[in-house]
C-alpha cells in the first residue's frame, strides 16, 4: 500500500465529508419552522417585526445561506456543533453521552451475528441445493424479512410476561457503572439487531463461499491431495473472507445509524434516541450534529474496511507486476 494511495484516499474522504456537511446543512435548513418558532412555540406569533429581526440576528439567521454555512462549518472544525435549543446543553456533550451506548450496541450485535452468520453460510454452501441449504436459506430469508420493530416489540412483551422484566423501565446503567447490569440491558436489544444482521452475513457468506469454491485453484488444491477440511478453510473460506469482511464492515457502519428503533423500544439513551428526540422537538442543532457524526463515522469505517481489504488481498498491496 503506497503512501500515494493513502494520501489520495484521505483527500477523497475529506471531499466526501465536505459534501456530507453541505447536504446536511441544505436538507436540515428545510426543516419545517425555523429555530425561533421552535424555541418560542406559539409565542412566536406575538413577536413584533423588530423583535423577530433582533432574534434572527442573534441566531445568525439574517446572514446569507452561504455565510451561515461557513459559520456553521467553521464551528464544526473547532468541534462546536451548536447548542440544543431545547435544553441549552452543547450538542457535543449530548453526543458524547449517547455515542458509547450505540457503539456498544453495534459491537455487541456484530459479535453475536457474525459467527452465527458465517457458520450457517458455510453450512448452506457446503452442499448447495441440498436440504440443509434450503432450510438455512429459508430461516435466513425470514431473518431478513422480520422487521426489527416487530422483533423488538415481541421481545419486550415476552420479557415482561415471562420474567416480569421490563428493560425500558428504570435508568440506563453504563458499562462503567456495572458490567452485568449494563449487559442485562444491552443483550436483548443487541440480539434483536443480530437477527437481520446474521441473516445478511449468512447470505453473503454463502454466495462468497460458493463463488470461491468454484475457482480453479480449489481444484488445484484438491489435486494436491489436501484434506477436505484444509481445502474448505485454507482455500475457500480464506478467499471468501474478503467479501465477507467488506460486507461486515459496511454493516457496522449502517448499524451506527440504524439502532434507532431498538433504542426507542428498549429506551436506551443512544444516538438514535437522541436523533429521534431532536426531530420530534425540532431541535435541529441535535439533528444536524447526530446526522453529521454518524455519516462521518460511516465514511471512516468504510475507509478502514478498504484498508483491511487491501491488507488481506496481496494483489492490491503492491503495484509492481513481476517478480
Amino acid at each position: 500500500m503506497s503512501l500515494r494511495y493513502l494520501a489520495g484516499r484521505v483527500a477523497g474522504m475529506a471531499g466526501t465529508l465536505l459534501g456530507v456537511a453541505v447536504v446536511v446543512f441544505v436538507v436540515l435548513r428545510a426543516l419545517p419552522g425555523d429555530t425561533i418558532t421552535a424555541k418560542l412555540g406559539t409565542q412566536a406569533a406575538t413577536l413584533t417585526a423588530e423583535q423577530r429581526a433582533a432574534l434572527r440576528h442573534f441566531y445568525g439567521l439574517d446572514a446569507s445561506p452561504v455565510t451561515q454555512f461557513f459559520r456553521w462549518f467553521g464551528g464544526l472544525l473547532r468541534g462546536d456543533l451548536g447548542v440544543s435549543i431545547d435544553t441549552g446543553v452543547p450538542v457535543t456533550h449530548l453526543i458524547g453521552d449517547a455515542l458509547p451506548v450505540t457503539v456498544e450496541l453495534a459491537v455487541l450485535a456484530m459479535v453475536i451475528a457474525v459467527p452465527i452468520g458465517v457458520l450457517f453460510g458455510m453450512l448452506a454452501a457446503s452442499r448447495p441445493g441440498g436440504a440443509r441449504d434450503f432450510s438455512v436459506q429459508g430461516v435466513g430469508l425470514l431473518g431478513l424479512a422480520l422487521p426489527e420493530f416487530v422483533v423488538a416489540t415481541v421481545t419486550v412483551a415476552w420479557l415482561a410476561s415471562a420474567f416480569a422484566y421490563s428493560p425500558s423501565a428504570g435508568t440506563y446503567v453504563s458499562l462503567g457503572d456495572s458490567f452485568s447490569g449494563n449487559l442485562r440491558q444491552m443483550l436483548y436489544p443487541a440480539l434483536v439487531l443480530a437477527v437481520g444482521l446474521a441473516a445478511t452475513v449468512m447470505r453473503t457468506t454463502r454466495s462468497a463461499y460458493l463463488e470461491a469454491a468454484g475457482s480453479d485453484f480449489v481444484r488445484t488444491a484438491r489435486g494436491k491431495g489436501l484434506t477436505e477440511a484444509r481445502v474448505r478453510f485454507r482455500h475457500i473460506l480464506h478467499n471468501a473472507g474478503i467479501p465477507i469482511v467488506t460486507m461486515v464492515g459496511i454493516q457496522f457502519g449502517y448499524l451506527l445509524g440504524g439502532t434507532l428503533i431498538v433504542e426507542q423500544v428498549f429506551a436506551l439513551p443512544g444516538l438514535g434516541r437522541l436523533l429521534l428526540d431532536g426531530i420530534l422537538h425540532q431541535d435541529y442543532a441535535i439533528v444536524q450534529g447526530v446526522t453529521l457524526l454518524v455519516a462521518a463515522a460511516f465514511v471512516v469505517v468504510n475507509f478502514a474496511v478498504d484498508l483491511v481489504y487491501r491488507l488481506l488481498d496481496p494483489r492490491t498491496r503492491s503495484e509492481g507486476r513481476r517478480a
Partner: protein
Amino acid sequence: MTQEMPPAAAAVVPAAPRTAGQPSLPRRILADRNGLIGVVLIGALALIALASLVHLGQDPLAQHQSGQLAGPSGAHWLGTDQFGRDIAARVAAGIFASLRVALVSVALATVIGGLLGVLSGFAGGILDAVVGRLTDVLFAFPATLLALALVAALGHGWFNTAVAIAVVYTPIFVRVARGPVLTVRESEYVRAGRVLGFSRSRLLFRHVLPNVSAPIAVQVALALSWAILTEAGLSFLGLGTQPPNPSLGLMVADSRNFFPDAWWTLLFPALAVVVAVVGLNLIGDGLRNALDPRTVRR
C-alpha cells in the same frame, strides 16, 4: 426498519449471452421455484390491497363500539383493535399504503438513478465524475439515517416518505446500472457496432440498455422490499403515515400495549410486512437465477 440494505454492488452479472433468446423473462421467473412462490405471495397482497380500495370488507376507520380488542370472529375475521376498528380492513388498507409508497419511491429511484447510471457509465468523462462524487456523498449516509433526516425535513405524508426513500435508493441504482454499462460498453458486440458506424444513441439504447436491464430488475425487487420495511419502520416511529390512517408500522406500534394478550393486533400487520418482504426477496432470487448464466443448465 433494519440496518439491512441489499448489497448494491453488482452481485449480478450483466445479461449472459447464454440466457438470451430463451423463454421470456417472466416465464423463466415462474419456472424458478423461488420466483413462483414470490410472485404468488406478492400477487395475493396486491389483490388484498386492491380489495381495500373498494371497501369489500369493512371500513378501516369505522369504530365498532360492540367490541374493542375483540379476537378473530365471524364478524371481524382478524379481530378488532383498541378502538374497535376492524383489523382485517386496516391491514388491507395498510398493505395498500405500503405498496403505494414502495412502488412510487422505487419507480422514482429506478428511473432517475438508472438513467444517471447508464448515461454516466456510457459517456464517462466529466458527467461520470460529477455523478460519481454525488453518489459517494449520498452513500456516506447510512440508509436509514438518510431516510429519517429527509422525512424530518420534508414532513409527513405518504408522498414525502416516498421521496425520502427514493433519494436513499437513487445512488444505489446509479451504481447498479453503471457497473454493467461499463462492461457492456467494452464488449465486442458494442465495439463491432462502433466499427460499423452505429451512432452513440443507437449503441446506448439498442445495444447497451437491453443488456443491462437484468441487474436493474433484480435490484428493483430488492429495493421494493427495503422500501416496505423502511416505510413501516418510519410509521412505527411516528414519522410516516399519521393516525388515524391505517399503516402496518403504526398498527404494530399501537399493539405494544396489548401484546401478548391481544396477539392479533400485532400478528396480522407484522405478517403482512413479512410476507411482502419474503415475496419480493424470492422474486429477486428468482430473477437472479433466471438471469445468471451459471444456473442455466445444458
